[in-house]
């Protein structure tokens, strides 16, 4: 495969041809624990990038920092060329960088369809004064509902449309959260373990959705522990361990990288990670 991602050689923190996110010197300390310590990181635009690493590597914390949900000790980063360090989380989302959560955040006392509608951005009816006059937002609401129903069908949640999100199974909530994130047509979607708890049959179709997203021009960054999946759909893999980016590269190459295997399994293994299921 001709290299259309990286400038020069793949290495931790290497430059990308067309990065959508560029971060440098991002650190976050919890007490004495340096949870994230990323010197340089670039996410390629229009690709599917997997962020992997053992438990506690700092993946979720990095997500939190990049999306403004947590404040770093140091660090700068840009999204679509604009500096967004220190920008509040909702503004980050408005710029088209939407994330999901590892511990699902479905809004349990609202129906599935209401969850979906909430995902749409720049709604006129969300202003206080216009909210009182339904003719101002009825049309928009119908359009949003249409998009929502479309997505629900794709995620096989259409039968649950009117159910409360609290009544969904864990896997279904994961799906709902992902579908909801897509309501705003983000340019970068960051999924924190989207497949955890989703059954294998659905996983396959989810993978297709993610590929479909890429085809539609959305950049995907996702955290995943299932190496098969990572190998199957990602164009690029970034490996974190103990807060640092320890390896980067194409999936096949990275999975054979000794540094990665060490990070996951300790120093004494030489298995190809791709043969491990659910590398926990």
């Amino acid at each position, binding site marked *: 495969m001709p290299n259309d991602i990286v400038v020069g050689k793949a290495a931790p923190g290497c430059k990308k041809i067309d990065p959508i996110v560029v971060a440098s010197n991002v650190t976050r300390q919890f007490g004495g624990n340096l949870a994230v310590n990323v010197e340089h990181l670039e996410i390629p635009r229009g690709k599917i990038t997997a962020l992997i690493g053992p438990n506690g590597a700092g993946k979720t914390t990095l997500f939190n920092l990049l999306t403004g949900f947590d404040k770093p000790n140091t660090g700068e980063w840009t999204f679509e060329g604009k500096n967004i360090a220190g920008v509040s989380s909702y503004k980050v989302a408005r710029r088209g960088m939407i994330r999901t959560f590892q511990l699902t955040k479905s809004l349990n006392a609202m129906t599935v369809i209401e969850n979906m509608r909430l995902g749409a951005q720049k709604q*006129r009816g969300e202003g206080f004064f216009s909210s009182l006059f339904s003719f101002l937002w009825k049309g928009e609401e119908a359009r949003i509902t249409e998009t929502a129903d479309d997505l629900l069908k794709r995620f096989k949640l259409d039968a649950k449309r009117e159910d409360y999100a609290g009544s969904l199974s864990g896997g279904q909530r994961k799906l709902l959260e992902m579908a909801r994130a897509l309501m705003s047509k983000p340019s970068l979607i960051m999924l924190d373990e989207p497949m955890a708890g989703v059954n294998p049959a659905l996983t396959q179709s989810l993978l297709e959705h993610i590929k479909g997203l890429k085809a539609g021009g959305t950049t995907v960054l996702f955290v995943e522990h299932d190496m098969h999946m990572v190998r199957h759909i990602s164009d690029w893999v970034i490996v974190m361990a103990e807060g640092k980016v320890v390896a980067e590269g194409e999936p096949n190459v990275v999975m054979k990288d000794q540094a990665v295997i060490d990070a996951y399994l300790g120093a004494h293994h030489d298995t190809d990670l791709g043969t491990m299921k659910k590398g926990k």
Partner: protein
Amino acid sequence: MDLLLTLNLSISELVSPLTAAYILCAIGLSVHFGYTGLLNFGQAAFAAVGAYGMAIGVLTLKLPLLAAMGFALLCVVVFALILGIPTLRLRADYLAIVTIASAEVFRYLMSTSGFSEVTGGSNGLSQFGYEFYTWNPVPKGQYNLGLFTWTEEEVWLRLVAFSLVALSAVLVWLMMRSPWGRVMKGIREDEDAVRSLGKNVFWYKLQSLIIGGLFAGLGGIIFVIAMSNVQPSTWVTTFTFMIWTVLLLGGAATILGPIAGGMLFFVLLTLTNELLDGLRAIGWLPFLDQPQVAQIRFILIGLALMLLVVFRPQGIFGNKKELRFNA
């Protein structure tokens, strides 16, 4: 014991202007807590700001009553901003402690002798409401409505109070069925999720605090017009807790809940009080004297609050799936 009188007294609570005042406060609290999930334990202060705002507007600023009411609502907005900007970032239970503390601070400030020129100190203020009755379109006379006989002033006061209740309920209904209300409910469920979808959660919470506060401010205004005076000792924490009981009784995230809750609460309260008092009078409760009977009501309020929250947190009208307490 006169059972008829007892019933009549209890039923008159249904349409008492003070019941309307509590209902307005509870509607405000439904916006705060029921729809947005804000644990506001300082609702008494919002009502007090409305009440004092109007009284001071008339007495010190020499405004006409209607303008003073406008001034009062403006004060409520300012109070909501002062309270909300620093505190809405706090965790829910901290918000509870800070709101209750702020309400007490406000009450201390109103009753301290230092500002008594303006606030009346611990005596409070009176004689600000005359103009209200000059607007009365109801012709002079006694109005016999079967159970009650009211003067034209009493009719007018009830008319205004309950029109405001109806108007507020309609407004809340309009707000909450809209996408705006959807954001509010989302915040109640999980504010981080809503943030991740690009909504300015802080601003929405502030809006909720202001709007719910305005309803409570109106409640305070009706309360003191009905009482014809403002006293600092009215706005104690127990006032807030009664509003909570009213709200939880009817259902926190419902439109009709605060109204039904308020009416039921005061009818039941009067009924039990009168019945206990009657029983005492005919010697069935020999161990209690009259004030103690009145004290039992508060025990009942406390018990009602505990039982409701544990066994029926959604209230009489609420949908269990719609309202659950977070955390």
